[in-house]
């Protein structure tokens, strides 16, 4: 058997592409929508750390911002927020 030396000689191999949203826009799963009250927020970033969907991003001043395209509305951020600055509201409201 000839050992492939370059990438071109390699047999075709299926590879997956790393991408945000490998399952599409998971925000459509949401029933409850987290809403941040920025006047209460202390920028502790705990919500950002615990978000299982990496749907909370940090702005330049460390305040959190929710990415509603991927947020599944689990409510972990609202539950863990030490100052209760995040409220969960029904989507239709």
């Amino acid at each position, binding site marked *: 058997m000839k050992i492939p030396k370059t990438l071109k000689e390699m047999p075709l191999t299926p590879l997956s592409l*790393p991408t945000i*949203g*490998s*399952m599409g826009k998971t925000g459509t799963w949401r029933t409850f929508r987290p809403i941040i009250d920025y006047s209460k927020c202390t920028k502790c970033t705990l919500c950002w750390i615990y978000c*299982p969907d*990496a749907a909370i991003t940090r702005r330049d001043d*460390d305040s959190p911002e929710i990415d509603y395209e991927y947020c599944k509305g689990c409510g*972990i951020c609202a539950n863990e927020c030490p100052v209760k600055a995040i409220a969960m509201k029904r989507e239709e409201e």
Partner: protein
Amino acid sequence: MQSEEWKFTAKDIAEKPDLFMSGHRACAGCAPAAVMRLILKATRGPTIVTMATGCMEVVSTIYPYTSWAVPWLHTAFENAAANASGIEAAIKVLRKKGRIKDEHVDVIAIAGDGGTYDIGIQALSGAVERGHDFLFVLYDNEAYMNTGIQRSGGTPLGASTTTSPAGEVIPGKLEPKKPIADIMVAHEIPYVATASPYYWRDLIIKVRKGLEVEGPAFLHVFAPCPRGWRSDPSKSIELSRLAVETCVFPLWECINGEYQLSAPSKVIAMAPQKKKPVKEYLAVQGRFRHLFTPKYEKLIDEIQRITDMRWQKLLKKCGIA
């Protein structure tokens, strides 16, 4: 092991891009997904991840896409550790032949409780015995969640699953949880630790320690599953705190055979009045709902007794009691 403790701030890990990306198909409130994110925040350079079949593999790699921004290999249920030892050996050979530059490549094997407690333990036992330099992470959601909540060796006593259903005949699972981390300590490997995502700083430091150590390392991470535990999705992280505070899942690390309690559990060891009764932890989970009926009430005392016995044993090992 490096003698210097690795110090970091929340800002340091914030500047690191997320290597486990959003848009995967884990259930809402999935704590294992949060654990994966935190693990990848602790990597120090080129890293290869290999993963046994399980929830996190199924939800994150939907061909032709993947949520992992690191080289990632899927393997069968039983051989995550065997795969990791193969990767580590291949890197060694490639370096010897001069095919790759002389930089360190970390290997992480990740498996669920089914892939570690039951199916994967032979491969894991073999790989750590051969002394390969890799970190094995067990994310423990206490049953085979991905295939429909079947009981595993990691399921605790009294938990109702689809193969140990609570009802007229049995009160859920009849056997207590297997002490897997102690089994790994018995292999005399350099680093064994337990971690919980609520204590995220502790978790990240333990992952980094496991990567830095020369030789095999084992990390047991507690990862609540709202679907299988029939708990509120928003309570997943809170449950990982309650498990530590009730001593159901104490946090410790064992470096070269020396046990020591980690800070969150040490606080409870120093002030025993802070230890909460297991009832608080059981009450928020639907899988233990039957324990609060008159028929199976006594099982709560049994769970408390086993928890206390294991906690006292651990304190003795740490030289505290």
